[in-house]
Every structure is written in C-alpha cells, then in structure tokens.
C-alpha cells in the first residue's frame, strides 16, 4: 500500500471530522459567537490579549507538539501499523480532539483559568496534595524518558550529538548578540539559521561517539545547568531557533513523502501479545499518547491559549483542529516506521524511536537532493532539541513542585529541601537514574501517568457540562476508556516489573494506581451523585 494514500486519506478524514463532529461538539456545548471571551472581557495587555486565530493556532500547536507524537507511533508499530493508524485517527477525532477542545472551552468559561486550576478548584486540599505527588512523579518519568531518548539518539546518530552541542553554543551566542550587542532580530535570525545548518554539516564531519551511560551523565549535568541558569541565557534563544528547526523538518518530511511515495512494507498486524505483559490492549493506548490523546495538552494549551482566544468560535479551530494536526504529524511518524521491512525496523528501533524517525525522514528528503547523512542528522538534531526543551522544562517544574511541597507558610527557617539547588539535584539524580533502566521500561509508565491526567481533564470537562445541565455523553466513553486503559496498564506494569525484580519501577505504577483509584472515586462522586449538581 502506498504511504501517500494513507497520509492523504487520514488528512481527508480529519478534515471531514473537523467539519462534522467538531461542529456537532461546538453546537452541543453551546459555543456562542456573541459571547465575550476572557481575552476581550479582561484584555490586560499582558496575559489576556485577543489574538488572530491563525497566529494562536501556531502558538498552541508549537506548545502541544514535541517529541511525543513521534516516539509513540513508532514504538507502538511493533503491533503492526494498522492498529496504530486506527488509534491515531479514531483517537484524535473522538478522544484527543474532544479532550483538547473541551479543556479549552471549559477554560474560556472559567475566565481563562487553566484546566489545572479548574481541577484544583474541585479537588480540595487532600486532592491537591495527591495531585502534587502525581505531578512530581510524572515529571520524573518525563525527565527519565526524554533523557533516555536523547542519549539513545546520540549513540545511534553521533553526528546529532556534535550538532546538538554546537547548537547550544550557537543559541547562547545568538542570545548574546541580539540581547547585548544590539544585533537586530532579523539579521540575527538569518545568520543564526544559516549557522544552524552549518552545525548540522559539522556534525556529519565530526561525529561524537560515546556510550549510552556517558551520555546520560552528560545530559544530567546539562539538565542541572540548563534548569538553574537564567532562562534568557540559553533556553529563550534556543527555543526561538528551535521553531525554525520544526518548520524545516515538517516541510522536508511532507515534501519527501509526496516525492518519494514509499510503499508500506511493515506487517499490518503482528500479534495481540508481543511479549510478556506487552498486550495490544492497553499498551497501544498508553504508548501512542500525543498522537491520539494526551493529558499534557490540557495543561499546556488551556492556560495560555484560553486567555488569547478572540471569539468562542475559534476554540474549535484551535482546540479540535490543533489536535487533528498533531494526529496528522503522528501519521507521518508512523510512515517512517511502516515503510521499513520488519528486519530493518527492528534493527533501527534498537537506536530508539528517534533513530527510526530521523532515518525515515532522511531517506525521504534524499529524494529531493538532500544528502541522507545531512538529512538524518538534521532530523535527529531537531527532535533532540525538542526533547531537551521538554527535559529542562520538566526539571524546572519538578523542582518547583518539590520546593512548594516542603514549604511551610509563615515559617522563617525553611527545610533544606526547599532550596533550589537541592530540589533540582534530587529531581535530576532520580530522573536520570531511572533513565538507565531504558526508555522501553519508562515510556509506558509515563504514558499511563499522562493518560491518567487526560481522564482527569475529561472529568473536569464532564463536571462543567453537568453543572451547566448539558449532556456529557461524548465525554463519558473517552473518560471511562482512558481510566480503564490507565488502570489495566498499571497492573501489567506492576506485574512485569515485579517479575524482573525492578522494584523502583514498581513503586511508580503502584502510586499511580492508588491515585487513579482515588481520583476515579472522587470523580464518580462528583459526577453521579445527585446532591452535587448545584454545588
């Protein structure tokens, strides 16, 4: 089967879903084009700023898209490409789209508060404490998973390691020149982007080959420095340059598929069980998160996007449309695995999902004249850059939550655990220690935590719909399904890690399981007990 057919038909289905199901949701939820949004109501010129929908869609998409939609589909392709494709398409339309659109809409109707704040408002003190523990554990898993992904990428594509180090130096220099030396942003950007491609080329000439564990240690040091250094020195200029990497990568990937039109060679379906404890249900649904439904989206998107929405009608384009675009990106990622033979896929997957993806896009781009080595290095650099952004953001957040948890109000002498460097060290050391266990062990636990969050966000949307005396049937199935997925996946993860005597990796699923049960029970009480209706 032609991959072009898969990509084009998926996009057509997404467009059709946008016009039909998206519009139906908007109608059911009561999108009101005459109602003032928080951006227009408050309009403080700082957070609340009415923004054109096209611009806002760009910001929103850049926030929700990271390495997630790339890793999940490739890793899950071991079940065959058909179940992954079906989950991406059905998940994006009926699960993720509803989740993102609903979170955004609820946020607008709560003065632009993020879905996190909405959840916080409904959970009480005990719930908040549980949620802090849950958030910190999830962030540790993110640190661990992304450290592993980047380290694996650097081992399998040493050219990308050199490029990434040079890219960091370039970003610091770019920030210094534009901030301190008065170089205009336009001139700086042109030179910066040119030098970025020079970094890619230098990477191909001087590949840096080190072992996985050495890279994990180097990355741990990097994360510590990057997450404690002032944000404007490295992170801000690096994130700015990153956006150009993303645009170039997406253009290259789509052009490559259009020109090359690779044929699908991977098996359509392999088996319901691929290893002990590795069943299609629930593993597929926790592995493919960002490309189908991801709880992370509700936190990232709703807080800032809702404050900038100019009109309620734009919520459909940004919330629902944004998720469908991410679904399309996940389909492209799947193609990079599905066009390979089973043997090639298994071999490349040993270097991690990014290795499969960068190899695939590198091959596609070579069809319009980009040398394979350059193309592959460029894609590996781009994905690593995004993973590094996720890494230091997660570390900063983890540190913040850790400090806040131990802070006592009105006490002058605080515990050493509230110290910035102590909290960062604990987060980095634990996160990177977990990384040594391998991404294949970590990713499903991270996926479960992420999907638990999605169930929780859907619960918040359902709660609001119920309070507004509107039907929440479209939420019930995704919410219940995601809870069942989470609980089943956690049971399997506890079993398999117990069998491997990997006790540290048992602790996480056990804690998440308890949290899931507590939260599901609270949600049930709030949603289905009559007396809560008017609270």
């Amino acid at each position, binding site marked *: 089967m032609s991959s072009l057919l898969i990509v084009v038909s998926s996009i057509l289905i997404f467009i059709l879903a946008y016009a039909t199901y998206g519009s139906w949701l908007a109608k059911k939820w009561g999108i009101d084009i005459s109602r003032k949004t928080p951006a227009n109501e408050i309009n403080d010129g700082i957070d609340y700023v009415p923004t054109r929908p096209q611009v806002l869609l760009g910001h929103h998409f850049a926030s929700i898209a990271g390495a997630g939609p790339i890793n999940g589909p490739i890793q899950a392709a071991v079940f065959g490409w058909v179940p992954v494709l079906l989950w991406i398409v059905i998940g994006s339309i009926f699960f993720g789209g509803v989740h993102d659109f609903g979170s955004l809409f609820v946020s607008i109707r709560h003065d632009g508060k993020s879905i996190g704040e909405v959840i916080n408002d409904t959970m009480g003190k005990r719930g908040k404490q549980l949620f802090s523990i849950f958030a910190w554990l999830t962030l540790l898993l993110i640190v661990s998973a992304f450290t592993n992904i980047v380290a694996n990428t650097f081992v399998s594509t040493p050219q990308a390691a050199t490029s990434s180090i040079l890219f960091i130096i370039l970003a610091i220099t770019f920030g210094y020149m534009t901030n301190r030396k008065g170089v205009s942003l336009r001139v700086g950007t042109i030179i910066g982007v040119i030098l970025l491609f020079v970094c890619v080329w230098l990477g191909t000439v001087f590949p840096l080959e080190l072992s996985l564990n050495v890279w994990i240690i180097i990355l741990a040091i990097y994360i510590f420095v990057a997450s404690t250094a*002032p944000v404007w020195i490295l992170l801000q200029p690096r994130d700015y340059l990153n956006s150009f990497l993303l645009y170039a990568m997406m253009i290259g990937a789509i052009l490559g598929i259009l020109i090359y039109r690779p044929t699908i060679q991977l098996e359509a379906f392999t088996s319901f069980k691929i290893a002990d404890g590795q069943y299609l249900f629930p593993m597929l649904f926790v592995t493919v998160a960002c490309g189908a439904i991801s709880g992370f989206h509700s936190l990232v998107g709703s807080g800032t996007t809702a404050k900038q929405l100019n009109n309620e009608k734009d919520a459909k384009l940004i919330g629902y449309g944004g998720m469908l675009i991410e679904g399309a990106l996940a389909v492209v990622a799947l193609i990079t695995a599905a066009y390979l033979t089973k043997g090639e896929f298994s071999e490349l997957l040993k270097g991690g999902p990014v290795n499969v993806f960068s190899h695939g896009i590198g091959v596609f781009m070579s069809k319009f004249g980009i040398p394979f080595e350059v193309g592959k290095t460029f894609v590996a650099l781009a994905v690593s850059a995004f993973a590094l952004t996720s890494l230091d953001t997660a570390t900063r957040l983890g540190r913040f939550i850790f400090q806040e948890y131990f802070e006592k109000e009105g006490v002058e002498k605080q515990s050493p655990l509230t110290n910035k460097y102590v909290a960062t060290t604990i987060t980095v050391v634990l996160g990177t220690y977990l990384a040594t266990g391998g991404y294949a062990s970590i990713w499903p636990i991270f996926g479960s935590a992420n999907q638990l969050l999605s169930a929780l966000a859907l619960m918040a949307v359902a709660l609001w719909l119920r309070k507004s005396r509107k039907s929440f049937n479209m939420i019930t199935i995704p919410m219940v399904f995601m809870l069942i997925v989470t609980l089943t996946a956690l049971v399997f993860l506890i079993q398999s890690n117990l069998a491997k005597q990997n006790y540290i990796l048992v602790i996480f699923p056990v804690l998440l399981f308890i949290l899931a049960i507590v939260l599901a029970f609270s949600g049930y009480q709030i949603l289905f007990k009559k007396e809560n209706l008017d609270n």
Partner: protein
Amino acid sequence: MESIQYIDFLKERLSKYYDITENYMISDINFEVIAKCNVISERYFFTKGAVIDSFNTYEYYLIKTIDTYNLDYFKSLLEKIITNLDSYEVEENHMRTIVNLVFLINENSGENIENFVKKFRYSRNIKFGLKGWIEASLVLVNLKENIIISNKKGKDIIEFLKIK
C-alpha cells in the same frame, strides 16, 4: 518649545507603560521626571503560581533640564549618576536594566559637550553576566533648535523623544 511643555509631552507619552515620579532626587541631583517600566516575562504551568521560569527587565527615563553648559559640570553630574549605577543591586531573576539619561537644554551646549555625549558609554555585567547587565544611554535634547544628540545606545530612543 519650553522645557515644561516638552516634559509634559514626554510624561504623556511615557504614562502608558511607565510609572512616573516627579522631582526625584538621586544623590543631590534633582530630576524633573523619573519614569520606570518593569517587564516580567514568565512561563507558568498548571496555575499562575507555578512559574517555570521568569526574568525581569527594567527601563528608566531620568529627565532633567540643565542650564549650565560647562563640560566639567556635565562630567561631574554624570559621575554622580554612574556612582549610583555602579552600586545598583538586582534581584534573582534580573536580566537587563536600561537607564535613559535625557538632558534638556534651551540653547546650544557647545561642541565639547556634544562630543562627550556621542562618545559616552556605560555598560556593566552583573556577576559575570549571570545576573544580567545594566547599560545607559545618554541623550541631549536641544529644545531651541529641535536637535537631539545621543550616544550609540541612545539612538534606540531618539524616535521616541522626537515631537511629531
């Protein structure tokens, strides 16, 4: 244009984004107007209380009319200001402070002062740049002839200071 009128014009223009204080003393120098703008850039997650990272930038306008057109007097004035800038303390998330020194004159100040203004440069890294930096621009507004002279850094604000 009289300096009072021009100061009113600047106050009006600055008032949108700056906090304005009138007749403020720094050392023994009286500034007719001091305007301060503090921009906090931050990313937060989950709730507004959960700030992932943030940085602060400050911009000041120190506006004073002078009527003594003597280079030594002008230099001593700036020395006092620079002494103050050298002891400027910053908070944890400080990135940049820009101090715009705007002196208003009602007649030609002479070539010496003009050359001094053009060559003036002040920039200081705080804790090797890890706590950001502070820099100053120096601008001379000749209200009589409607001419603005500045140092290199001051060129950024010339358009803002022009009466349109």
